[in-house]
Every structure is written in C-alpha cells, then in structure tokens.
C-alpha cells in the first residue's frame, strides 16, 4: 500500500478526447481514484485496450498502456500478465470490442482466469464508427446499418461471462460513482479475472440508453444491488425484497429476502440474477454477481516452470544442444 498516491498521479499528460458529456469521463475519474486507493505503484500497472472510444482509455492513465487492435485486448493482456505476473493488469473495452469482434478472446480469458480486471464500457452502440447497433443493442434498434430495426437478439454480458465460468462478475453504472468505486475495489481485490460491465452513456449516438434503469430518480426502484452477504433488498424505501423459489426468483417483503451469496461454487444463482432484467416487473441487478476462487492461469504456468527447474535443474545452452544420442566424427 502506497498511501501517498492520489488520483492525480494516475492522470497522464494527454488531452482527453471524448465528446463532452460522454460517460467515459466519469469512469476515468473513478478508475484513477480507485487506482490511488488500491495503491499499486503506477509503474507496475498496465492498461490494455482494443479499439473504440472506450479503448482510448489507456492514453489518459499515467501508467503503462497498450492501445492494441480491435477485439484483441484480452489476448494481449494474457501475454502481458503471463510474462510478468507481478504487474497489475487492466483491460478496458467496449461492447463492440469485447462482445462483437473480441467475444472469443473475452470468453477464453474468463475461463483461463488470469488475475486481470476487465472493464467493459457498455453503451449498446459502436461509438467510434459513428453509431451502428452493437451485440448489446436491444432487438429493433434503429441505426444507419439497421434502418428498419436490428434483428439480432442481444447478448447479456453478465450471462455471457457466467456462461464462460468467470470467477468474478459484476455490473455498475457511469452515473453511480460510489457504487463503481466499491465494485472496482472488490474486483482489484479478487484473485482471478474480474469482469465488470459498466453501463455507459454515449451522448452522441445512444443518449439515455439506460435512463429508465439507472437515472438517479428511478434507480433505487429499478435496480437491486447484489451485495455479498446482504439480503436482496431494494426500493427507495428499502421496501422490496427478492427471494429464490425453486428455479424462479420472486418478489417478496424485505424480511423474506434471500441473502445474496456470490461465492457459491455453481454459477447458477448468479446466472438466474443475470436473466432478471428480462422480467419487466423485476429490478435490474447491479453489484457483484459472482466472486469465487479458482486456479489462476499465470500462477499455474509459472509454477510449472519453477517445478520443472526444481526437478530438472535450470537448463543451459550446453545441455540444450548436446542432448539425445550424439556421436563424434574425428
């Protein structure tokens, strides 16, 4: 812990070039603050991103940064972290970058469970290419490439991550700075891949996409915060609860609410919560869906290397070349 770090330490000298009003600004702010709180020296922190408005993020962090190519940030980050497990590695990506072109790399980093934090800025649109529907856009979204409405059924990023057996899965929103901080810190504390969906507003191409859920006026009633070890209670007055009932989730009085446990071995409960937003009468869960420990890829890789060295001895060039059946010609 380096308690002298402040948010300012994580601000790079580069001019931030998002549109005025873009939700990305708020996220940048919170991440910079969270990094200071987490306290890892900034020279040991790496931000890796793909391509998209959101993926410009690393330029604005005064850490090591890699703005890679579209969709491939998880793969590059896998290389970074495996090569040097001591680094704190963050991936910043968009709904297009992560779930369209990059869906496979995201899926695989989640199953491999490297100790990396992934921030998915979900604005339900391709921002940088000027507003086409994305894999998270609701069916029927009208954009220039879908003038009569999109016909694709969207991904739910949380369900997707759980389907990949991700060990840490959470959701937060760009207008809920305190919540975002809490979630980010929990993610950083988690050993394994942390996947965080952040509802992010694109003022230019998809303004207000999440308003009906996260607007400060309605959010208490329209969202339920999944807090580890807490009963699932929500509502402005804390007057509503959620209870697991067989395969179903039902609304109930706050006293009867089930206690949320993101640490169950099976991701089934978390998955159930992830599909809740399909039910109009139900709140949209935010917070921590899942948080379990499992094998961490880079640790296993490193331990195989060190146990090979321990058992066979560190190889030398001489051993390498002069091995197997050799013979001499004189």
């Amino acid at each position, binding site marked *: 812990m380096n308690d002298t770090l402040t948010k300012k330490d994580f601000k790079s000298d*580069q001019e931030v070039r998002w549109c005025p009003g873009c939700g990305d600004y708020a996220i940048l702010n919170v991440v910079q603050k969270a990094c200071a709180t987490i306290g890892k020296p900034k020279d040991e922190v790496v931000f890796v991103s793909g391509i998209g408005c959101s993926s410009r993020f690393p330029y604005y962090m005064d850490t090591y940064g890699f*703005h890679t190519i579209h969709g*491939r940030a998880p793969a590059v980050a896998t290389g970074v972290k495996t090569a040097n497990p001591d*680094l704190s590695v963050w991936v910043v990506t968009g709904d297009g970058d992560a779930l369209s072109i990059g869906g496979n*790399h995201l899926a695989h980093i989640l199953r491999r469970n490297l100790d990396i934090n992934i921030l998915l800025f979900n604005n339900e649109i391709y921002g940088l290419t000027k507003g086409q529907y994305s894999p998270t856009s609701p069916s029927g979204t009208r954009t220039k490439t879908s003038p009569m409405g999109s016909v694709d059924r969207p991904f739910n990023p949380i369900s997707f991550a759980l389907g990949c057996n991700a060990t840490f899965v959470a959701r937060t929103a760009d207008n809920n700075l305190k919540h975002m901080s809490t979630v980010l810190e929990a993610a950083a504390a988690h050993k394994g891949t942390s996947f965080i969906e952040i509802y992010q507003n694109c003022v230019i191409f998809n303004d207000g996409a999440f308003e009906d859920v996260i607007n400060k006026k309605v959010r208490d009633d329209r969202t339920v915060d999944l807090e580890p070890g807490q009963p699932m209670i929500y509502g402005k007055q804390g007057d509503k609860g959620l209870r697991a009932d067989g395969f179903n989730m039902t609304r109930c009085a706050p006293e009867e609410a089930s206690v949320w446990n993101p640490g169950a071995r099976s991701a089934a409960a978390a998955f159930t919560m992830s599909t809740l937003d399909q039910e109009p009468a139900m709140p949209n869960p935010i917070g921590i869906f899942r948080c379990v420990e499992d094998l961490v890829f880079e640790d296993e890789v490193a331990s195989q290397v060190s146990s090979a060295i321990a058992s066979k001895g560190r190889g030398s*060039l001489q051993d390498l070349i002069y091995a197997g059946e050799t*013979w*001499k010609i004189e």
Partner: protein
Amino acid sequence: MTFTTSSGELPLELAETVVIRFAGDSGDGMQLTGNQFTTASALVGNDLATLPDYPAEIRAPAGTRAGVSGFQLAFSSKDIHTPGDAPDVLVAMNPAALAVNIKQLKPGGLVIANTGSFSQQDLLKAQCETNPLADGSLDGFRVIEIDINKRVKEALADSGLSSKDVQRCKNFYTLGLMYWLYSRPMEPTQAWLKEKFAKRPELAEANIAALKAGFNAGDIHQLFQGRYEVKPCTDLDPGTYRNIMGNPALGLGLIAGAELAGLELVLGSYPITPATTILETLAGFKNYGVTTIQLEDEIAAVCAAIGASFAGKLGMTTTSGPGLALKGEALGLALMTELPLVVVNVQRGGPSTGLPTKTEQADLNQAIFGRNGESPIPVLACATVADAFECAIEACRIAVEYMTPVILLTDGFIANGSEPWKLPRVEDLPRFEVKFHTDTENFLPYSRDDKGARPWAKPGTKGLAHRIGGLEKEHLTGNVCYDTDNHEFMVHQRRDKVMGIRDSIATPEVKGAQEGPVLVLGWGSTYGAITEACNLLKQDGTEVGQMHMRHLWPMPAGLEEIFGRFERVLVCEINMGQLAGILRSQYQHTEFVSHGRVLGMPLQSHEIASKIKSLLK
C-alpha cells in the same frame, strides 16, 4: 558397434547412397520404422536425409490408398543433401502402399512386398483391379515377396500376445530384415523399445523378437542377391553430431536465441500442421525458463506474444500458412509499436486448407506483403534442418536489435525431415544481450538508436510509464499523431530501419563458378536439391554458380554485383515463381528464369539439373 547375422554367406556389397521408402497403412507404424532406421544409420555414421509423407487424416480406413503413410530416407557414405529423387527400394506393406508409391521407384528398383496383405479383399480396398504382383505391372522392378504377416505370427507364436498385438509387430520384423540387408546394428532399437514399453515389457519383448526374427530370417535372405554395407560418411566435418528433425532443431534455436538475448521466451501458439511440433518441443523445455501458451486461435497467439514482448520477455509465435494469414493484422500492430517478435511460419501446400501435410514454399509473398499499409517486416528462411537452429537465433537477433517483428519461413519438408546436425560450440554462438531502457531522464519511447531501434522500457520500470498503440505515432514522443508530415516521416523511419538490417548481414557466398552463363539461386528447403543438382552437373564436367538466400527481406547488399557476373539467374522454388518475381522488381537489369514446381514435394535434383542444362545450351 557390432552385430551378428545368420546369413554371412551372402556377398556383402559396398553401396554409397541408398534410398529406401517404407510404405504402409497409417496404423502400420511406418513413421516409427523410418525413424528407427534413421537413428541406426546415424549411429553407423552415415550422412542421411529423410522425407516422411503421411496423409491429412489420422488413420484412414486400413488398406485404402488414402490411408497410406510413407517414409523415405537416404543414407550414404558421402555427404548428401536430399532424401533422394527416387527410392532404390520400396517396402510395401500392402497393395495400397504399393500402388501409391510405385511410380516413384527407380527403374530396376527393388520392391519388398508383404504378400500377407495382398488378399482379394486387400486388393479391393486398394482399388486394384488385378494383383500388381501378378499382372506384370511390376515388370522392370525386382520384386521380393514375403508373407510378413505369417512370419510374424510364427515368430511370436509363443509370446502369449493376442493376434492383433502380434500383427502390430510386423513393422519391427520388416525393420529387422532391412537392418540385415543394410548391415545396421539392432541394439539402439532394442534399447529404444525397452524404454518405450517400460510399462509393458511383454510388448518390448515381442517387438524385439520380431526385429531379430527379421534380421535372422536366413531363408528369406536367400531371396536377395546379397546384402549391402554403407560405410560411415567421412566427408562430414569433424565434430559432435546428433540426428534431429527440423522442427525440434528450430525449437532449440528459439530457446537458444532467447538465451543469447538474455531473455526468457514466451511462445504463444495454436496447433496447426506442420508447425505444431515446434510448440510441442518448447512445451518440454520449461526448465529453460520457457513459457508456452496454447491459445484459442492464431490471432490470440500472436497477440499474447506481442503482450509478452511488451512486458519484457521475448514473444514468439509459430504457425503455418492459413495461420499466418490470420496474424496479418496483429503483425501490423507489432511493427507499429516496434516490439520484438519472432514469427515462425512452417509452409505447407496451399491455397486455403490445401494440402496440410505436404510441403510448399508459397507463403513468401504473404510474408513480405501480406499486411495493410506500408508494413515492412524482415523475412528469412532456413535452408536445412541444421540451418533451422541458426536461423532461429538470427531471427531473435534481428527482433531484439531492431525492435521489430521478424518472420522466419521454413516448410513441411524441413519440419519433419531429419539429418545429422553438427552441434555448434556454445561459445561460438552470437550474443546480443538486450539492455532494457531504465534511464528516466528525458525518456522518449520513439527515439531511435543508431540502428533505428526505439528503446525497450518494460512495465514495472520506475518512472518510464508510457503508452503505445496501433495509431500513427509521433516521432520521439510516441504520442498519437495525425499530422501528415509526421506520418510520412514515420513511414520512412520504419522502412529505413528494416532496410538497415542489411548492414548487419553478409552477402551470401557463391559456390562453384563465380561468373558465367548461369547462377542457380534458391531459398529455404530447396538448398539440398539445388546442391545435388550442381553436384550432378559437376560430375558431368559443368560448373555453374550456386547461391542460397537466407535473408529474403531486406535482401543483403552486394547481390547486384553478383548477379552482374552471370548471364542469367535460375531461381528454383516450390511455388510459381514468387522469389523470382520479387527479385525482378528489385534487380531490373538481371534476367531471372523461374523453375517453380508445386507438387507438394521437395524439388527433384535431376529436374533442376536438366533445367540448368537447358539454359546452358
């Protein structure tokens, strides 16, 4: 090395070079048989070269032509360079193996046919309307018929093995016979069998018994007119040798390259024939600090390697043609971010999925040109199995000295072929230790040293936090920059850096004639065939110049002068003239003649020789 034989009474002839092809079902263990014969020959001290040839299916139905697996090897008391244009001996374990391979056998060559697998049903499976052993189609060859199935059964009658397991020993019976015929020692194979079947000693016993039975089958031996001895090769340079296949040799070179750079190696890869065995080789060397990651696809593989290089290790990736096609975009990222990266491409028959288990050299254009934008990447190719080791080191050197991705081309023939490798002395290997940038004073991520390389400052280094990416970079600072003049400047910088590599490489040597009507030029695995072709001509009293290119991009200095000494340059390659095309665009005053074949096989020396002759007329 001693051995006994029951057929001492047959004449023992001296042979210089013998080419044998073993052919049978994919399940018959032909690769294994070939490899054992190879090891035995290596230990005898022969020079040798091998050419495995197996189908793209794992184990197509027994007895069909599709299922035939072959292994050709040449062994010699002379210095040889190819597994031979055509075999002297064909060992055919069934009619399909015979049918598929007979057209390559030398006129007058020897066929050893396992009649135990020539039943009517076998012929049917092999789509033979008549029995080739009986229908006269083998006129012009010497044919020796042996019912190996029956022989093995007899030999292992008391082994207690199931008849299926007994039949699995057929190949060792055959091997024993061939050991006898060519006077090879059985001990190494016996030792190998004992180790391999350590957990099932009864199988080791049975196979050894089969081997010996073949070796000692005096009545069969009588069918031969004699047996042969191939003396140790004395043309080879003195030194310590080991027999090795191309992919493992290349893998060792990658490990050595990283070590010589003072770095640890991270290989990101995805299996693909015929590159997979490099990944498999490296996965076995974890105690050298080697990290291998098998990723979800080729794109992830190269990206992970790039990430590893960013983090300060030496990132590498191995693949074959279709995989290289997928890596094109990411290679652009590596070159824009100017990170070291070694990309090995083991070429196979294309286009598309093509002929995955056959060899070809048709990815040269792709390697040099296959990316968007102005994207120069150095390309080199290894000429032989042993050269694969050296080229891997050279690729590492270029990558770290110039902070650039490098593509190393090899092909299926080198990958799976083997030859005696004269082991280098460790102290003779080049060293190019990397010095990471650590000075925080005025750190400029896109400043350049005298080679044009930018500083490598790895994450974790205090005070050097910086950001890189695929957008155009500003000179010196590396900031994102859309300025038009800066863009042109940077395009030139990247080009000049790569072209500057030419200052660190030697002009290739011309062997044979130093001037005259024809220079024969090759790259990659055609080296052996071209060398043999030139030797053939020399025996005829004709000497031409021969040159082989290791560095294909940038091309070394001095070629213009060399080309100027010859009337024309014959470019031999296993493609439709790709290098010839590039040379034409670079050296407009030279006449390049292309000899390009795409048969999925190495070039044939006699064909090259006659091509040269036709140019001399």
